[in-house]
């Protein structure tokens, strides 16, 4: 599967727009992301392990309103991460 980043998150994945991972669920994908890009995973996940609500996830262009770690993923799936944050 492929994770797709844009905007502010790019700096935490070495400015690569796509990260290809071998993962069968969203939870696996986040674990893989944590191994490759720990800071990106920190910013994706809250302390309880859930996807922070400030990120919107789109699975093959369909928005996941409440992304679960158990969300199954197939080999060709594309999960796009939309991160709209401001302030500081």
């Amino acid at each position, binding site marked *: 599967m492929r994770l797709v980043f844009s905007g502010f998150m790019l700096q935490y994945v070495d400015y690569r727009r796509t990260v290809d991972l071998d993962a069968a669920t969203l939870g696996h994908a986040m674990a893989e992301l944590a191994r490759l890009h720990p800071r990106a995973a920190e910013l994706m996940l809250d302390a309880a392990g859930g996807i922070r609500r400030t990120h919107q996830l789109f699975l093959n262009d369909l928005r996941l309103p409440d992304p679960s770690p158990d969300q199954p993923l197939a080999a060709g799936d594309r999960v796009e991460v939309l991160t709209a944050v*401001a302030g*500081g």
Partner: protein
Amino acid sequence: MTAALVTGEGRGYEDAAAEARRRWGGLLDDVGKDAPRRYAEGTALPREAFRRAAEEGLTGYALPPRVGGGGAGPGAWGRTQQELGRLCADPVFPMLVGVQAGIAGVLAAAGDDGLDERWVRPIVAGACVPALAFSEDADLFSMRTRIRPDGAGFRLDGRKEFVGGGLTADVFLVYAAAPGGDLVACLVDAGDPGVRVEPVTGLGFATGASARLLMADVPIAADRIVAPVDGLSHAQRFLNTRRIDIACTVAGQMRTLLDRAVERLRVTERHGRLLIDLPNVQAALGRMSMGVVTAHAVTGHALRHIESGRLQPGFDPVVATAKHQVTAAALALVEEAFRVLGGHAYYGDPHFAMAVREFHGLVAGSGTQEHLEINLGVHAAHTPGGAG
């Protein structure tokens, strides 16, 4: 001419505006008295003004009745803020009331009886004045204010560089980085050991009692934690709602500036002619008027969007567009005013100089214009055809 005719808004706006004038016109008159002199001196609005705003039901107008609020919906609250912006000669007062109401709103939204009793009800009653402690001259992912576990509670260290209303606040809503990179939202009492505030000045917000908040090893009890996890999203939700508050207030302020410009141009002669009869002046007024209508149109659209239940928490493209466009229109309006009013805007009527200062603050406030543009662009890439 009625507000509805000027702005294209309908009955809902008129009703809310009339209600605001009836309930809070006296308060706004009192707060606005001598505002230009106080603004020029940098004299802070008295705490009493905020106590009175709460006691007269303004601060809690949109809060749930269970915490003593008025239960007004987002549309009525937004239209009320437009009228506050229009009526109040001190541009800072409605902004600070909006922040205070927003803080009470996010605390009430937690649905925690303890938070309600200890903080929300006192804020709504005027017994406690809150302030937002967020900005620290860092990006959102690099906040240097830190919170760490300490026994059954926590300890807080850091500084917030610009806290509107900080000198007169009783409690601060502070965002701090926790071990592991998460953000935590917590409440810091102004009297807590290790807390210090010192005055700061900026380009604007001159009557806003602005402060730097310094925190050194401040003990934070567990019940002061508002958002124990994902404070990042908590902060974004807060800023999201601030954007519509700002847009509404400024739209009202723009109307008053247009009125003041027209009033002056109607009686000012140059080369034997009234300025208002000159085509170039009329064109400038036309551009200013379009700015006012645009500001009311985008805020009205955003308010209807929120009322329909379509507000996206965290980042809403319609609300962000409203804040961005109102800011741009406000800056353009005040520049036009300087062009046609000349020295009168510079030294004759201090409201225009105050507006210049305040409107430039909007460029940075609640998400810089640049940040909003980036976010809107990223969002547009996912929602071809527009955001609604």
